């Protein structure tokens, strides 16, 4: 239902690109996460889809209709896309009911619909409060209700949880996606937090420097990351360079890069490849302990273990099934 074709955008007349020839497709009812560090172009991408930015090249097709290209631009208000902003962007001078009714002013039963939406997000009874009287999480849900009220064909959430603290975030994340699943709307959400992405998305799209570097289902992405960069996005990863390979005595294909995830390293257990190391420093993390190790060949690495008590000298190793291999 959404086709993005070699979309490009530059903010400095081509000296550098915020987005360069990005292409992907999205099917009806899917929830897609766009993951990237800040500056990777993810916000630019959704703003282009929303029609708030104008592409320098490429096109966007929404529901079979071209909405953005270098010759044509459908105004954002005519795209039927709902957008939840990072800072919620509630209208401070309207109460909640008016905020939610804003996008459906042409509907006959707008009041009923707005109340229904507020109920959906669990805020019924607060219709006449003003945004500044709400907590961050409540504002987030109002923003969602407001975006969903006009029944958008596509819902975009831009960094929806980044302004919330960890506890609230987990709670709200499940609530929000429950609501999204309930309404069955096609959704794109932008995040720099891979946990958000892994837990709720049907599909994840990784952006780096304005380019898509991988697009896959969450499980595939985790198991078969296309680069060490992608791998490291989903958890602490240790690169296996030449020296490391010697340390563990595991000669690998020299044409490929290899890495091993931190959680696949075992301490003092039997594995295919092992080496010994001296613990230089232990940092207690609560859920585990961070260790700074000096391998026998002199390599220094940092790993996290669930163990609380760790001896000063340990055996460390991994199995070949856990190896990550990146071609080219």
């Amino acid at each position, binding site marked *: 239902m959404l086709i993005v074709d*070699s979309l*490009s955008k*530059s903010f400095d*007349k*081509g000296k550098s*690109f915020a987005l360069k*020839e990005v292409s992907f497709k999205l099917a009806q009812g899917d929830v897609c996460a766009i993951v990237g560090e800040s500056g990777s172009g993810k916000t630019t991408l959704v703003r282009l889809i*929303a029609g*708030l930015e*104008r592409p*320098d*090249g490429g096109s966007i097709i929404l529901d079979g209709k071209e909405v953005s290209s*270098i*010759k*044509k*631009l459908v*105004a*954002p*208000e*005519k795209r*039927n*896309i*709902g*957008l939840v*902003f*990072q*800072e919620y*962007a509630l*209208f*401070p*001078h309207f109460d909640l009911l008016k905020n939610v009714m*804003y*996008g459906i002013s042409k509907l006959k039963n707008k009041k009923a619909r707005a109340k229904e939406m507020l109920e959906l997000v669990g805020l019924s009874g607060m219709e006449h409060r003003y945004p500044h009287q709400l907590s961050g999480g409540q504002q987030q849900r109002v*923003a969602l209700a*407001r*975006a969903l009220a*006009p029944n958008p064909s596509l819902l975009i959430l831009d960094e929806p949880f980044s302004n919330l603290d960890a506890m609230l975030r987990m709670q709200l994340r499940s609530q929000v996606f429950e609501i999204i699943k309930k309404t069955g709307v096609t959704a794109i959400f932008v995040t720099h937090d891979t946990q958000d992405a892994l837990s709720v998305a049907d599909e994840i799209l990784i952006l780096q420097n304005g380019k898509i570097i991988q697009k896959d289902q969450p499980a595939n992405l985790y198991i078969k990351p296309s680069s060490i960069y992608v791998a490291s996005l989903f958890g602490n990863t240790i690169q296996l360079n030449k020296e490391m390979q010697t340390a563990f005595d595991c000669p690998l294909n020299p044409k490929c890069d290899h890495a091993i995830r931190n959680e696949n390293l075992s301490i003092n257990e039997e594995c295919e490849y092992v080496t010994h190391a001296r613990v230089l420093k232990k940092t207690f993390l609560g859920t585990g302990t961070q260790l700074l190790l000096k391998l026998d060949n002199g390599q220094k690495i940092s790993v996290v273990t669930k163990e609380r008590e760790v001896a000063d000298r340990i055996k460390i190793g991994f199995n070949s099934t856990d190896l990550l291999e990146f071609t080219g």
Partner: protein
Amino acid sequence: MKQAGSSDIFSLKARLNRLKRDTNRWSVLTLAIVGFIALPIISIGVKLFAGPGETWGHLVDNLLVDYIGNSFFLVFFCSLLVLLFGVSSAWLVSRFEFPFRKQLEWLLILPLAIPSYIVAYAYAGIFDYGGSLELLLRVFDIDFFRIDMMNKFGLAFVLSISLFPYVYVSSRAFFLNQAGNLLEASTMLGIGEFKSFFKLILPLARPAIIAGLILVLMEVLNDYGAAQYFGVNTFTTGIFRAWFALEEPETAIYLSALLIAIVFALILFEKWQRKNQQVASQKASKFSHRKEFRKPAQWLIFFVVLIPVSFGFFIPLAQLIYWAVLTAGNVFDFDFLLLSLQSFWIAFVTAVVTVIFATLLIYFAKWSSINTVKSISKLGILGYAIPGAVVAIGIMIPTLALDKWIIGIMNDYFGISAGLLINGSLVALVYAYAVRFLAVAYNPIESTGLKVSKSIPDSSRMLGMGNFRTFLRVEFPLIKTGILSAIILVFIDVMKELPLTLILKPFHINTLAVKAFEYASDEMVMEAAIPSLFIIFTAAIPVIFLNRLLIKD
């Protein structure tokens, strides 16, 4: 397409395609407004090509050095004095608690309500032979010591004392809203209050202060009445001399162009300043509380802050009231009341019209998707840099052409002989005011607009509202204070405006400023007091109101 890359995307054809795509009615309307505002300026600019008049050489030989020297002298000394008065008082009222602080906070803006040429007359009257000071000293049996105000030092003093509130307002806004954390952090590091102010606060406040200072300097360079009375030759008196005494508009235009170049240099300097500010700008942080010294020290601060208020407002006001009492019988009658009302409503209508133009310009430019158009839209505010008399002539050129065109059409097609339509009507006058004061309205609206997060209008558009409805329903309610401030500022400026009004005002219509000038130019300075007081009165009330807005904001 795949291997195309940047070269293809930025090929001429692609650029043209995008330009076509991005050209919307807002771009066109923005350019239309800029064109409308710039028309008089362009009309004058075109005349530059005709070359200067024959006295240009004479002027360069005999006077130009004097004009440049005096103008730079004024720029330099006024900057010093204005910074001294404006910044110190702004810091004291925003950082310390002292008796009558709240009252002084708005009293410090009031000097703006008195036109600077009136302040000049008042000071000349005070230090005159047989003037108020002499009378006062006589009461105490002290020998008269005379301070000669009527020279360039006196002029610098008078202009500074009547214009420093621009700097006061802009720097106070910074101190009140931005300086809190900074000072706290700095004092936590054990750096003293005094040192923190000079080493930390002042450099960060610089862009805000400079913004106010630029406005002051434009007014200083544009001053005619005060400089002329004090016998100081400046660019602006030179423009009048060349235009009228030497009968050479061409030469006057050359002088104007030189003046405008100086002003533009100042503006560019300020823009550059602001660019730096954006990097340094930070979240609002107010002082948690004002510092309270013991009573004697508090009174000391009170007296320090009272100095600029007294010199800028109370002393000239007292002199004007004294004159007003002497002349009340001659000046005050029913016609005068009528004239006051006329002034008032012209200023009000102009303020509203100008603010509408400024708002449209700002928002049309915002809605336009072409960056060049956005940059061009900024040209609309340059009218403020151009002397009122020059703007007036600039307005006459195109409006007369239009009038003559209409007259021609009326004659040819309808056989009616029509008179001048626009020229000599309120329309031309209001047009001229709008050209001159658009910048005054533009700044407060733009800056409150910047405080509204970009995502607010964006989310309105995502909810199906077009630009215009978004503005009416969401943005307008959120920038109301800026709009109101803009209306007040333009109102005050129009109430005070002189040379432009003199040239363009229609029959049957008069303003208080013109009335005051008529008296003064006929050597009836005393009689000018009552209209001046009316100007001050009608301007002071909105000023006080404005202060409330600024503080709330």
